[in-house]
């Protein structure tokens, strides 16, 4: 197993049959983002505010079991349709900022391939303890 950076980085790659532009816009269009980005099957999306410009911020609030869970962050780079960089914080569960980089490459098929890199995902309390399971469960509740 390769050693993880101390703060933790997650990378996933996925192909889409939709065009790079549509996949890119799905992150910044409030109507579309509200349906998938931090949506959960049982939650209720209550607020989606997206100021899609560099330096602009977003606020996505989903109500889960009667509790509002805020996802907040700021856009650092916006290069439609290839690259999107923004911060993400879920204040209810962690004061720590994480950073997301979305890279989208058009494919000859007309679809695209998306690579997501989520940095600093490892909260200090998990990095520093081997018994953070309860927190993990709470975090999963927060993020699912």
């Amino acid at each position, binding site marked *: *197993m*390769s050693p*993880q950076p101390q703060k*933790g*980085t*997650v*990378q*996933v790659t*996925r192909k*889409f*049959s*939709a065009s790079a532009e*549509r*996949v890119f816009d*799905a992150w910044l269009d409030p109507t*579309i983002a509200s*349906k*998938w*980005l931090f*949506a959960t099957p*049982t939650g209720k999306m209550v607020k989606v505010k997206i100021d899609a410009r560099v330096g602009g911020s977003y606020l996505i609030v989903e109500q889960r079991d009667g509790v509002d869970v805020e996802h907040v962050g700021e856009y650092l780079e916006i290069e439609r349709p290839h690259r999107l960089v923004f911060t993400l914080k879920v204040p209810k569960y962690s004061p720590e900022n994480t950073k997301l980089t979305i890279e989208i490459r058009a494919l000859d098929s007309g679809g695209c391939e*998306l690579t*997501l890199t*989520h940095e600093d*995902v*490892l*909260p200090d309390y*998990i*990095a520093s303890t*081997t*018994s*953070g*399971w*309860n927190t*993990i*469960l709470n*975090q*999963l*509740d927060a*993020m*699912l």
Partner: protein
Amino acid sequence: MQRTSSLSQSTWIALADPTRRSILERLSRGEARVTELARPYSMSLNAVSKHIRVLERARLIRRRRTGREHFLSFNPDPLTSATAWIEAQRSLWMSRLDALDSLLEAEDAAAPKVPKRKEKSR
């Protein structure tokens, strides 16, 4: 997908369900009988047993038999490493991107708006 992580697919699937997470939370406070576990949920014993089986497969639950009684307890081992957390995050993003893909495909199915500039029948 890489399978080097300590958090297996079965662990992730087990944790992805809120009922199962709440069963684990209950068991983290001490061992319990299956019937005791089922009580707070508005579901059948059978349905709860299914959840328990998923958790057992993921090694998140241990079972102890005393005569005819089965006692369940929580086993945090699969969750205790930072790598497990990282893997959970990865799975979470995979499922979000799956949701996005389904959403875009549903849009296409509902409104096939490929502007092919073919003949319009009006």
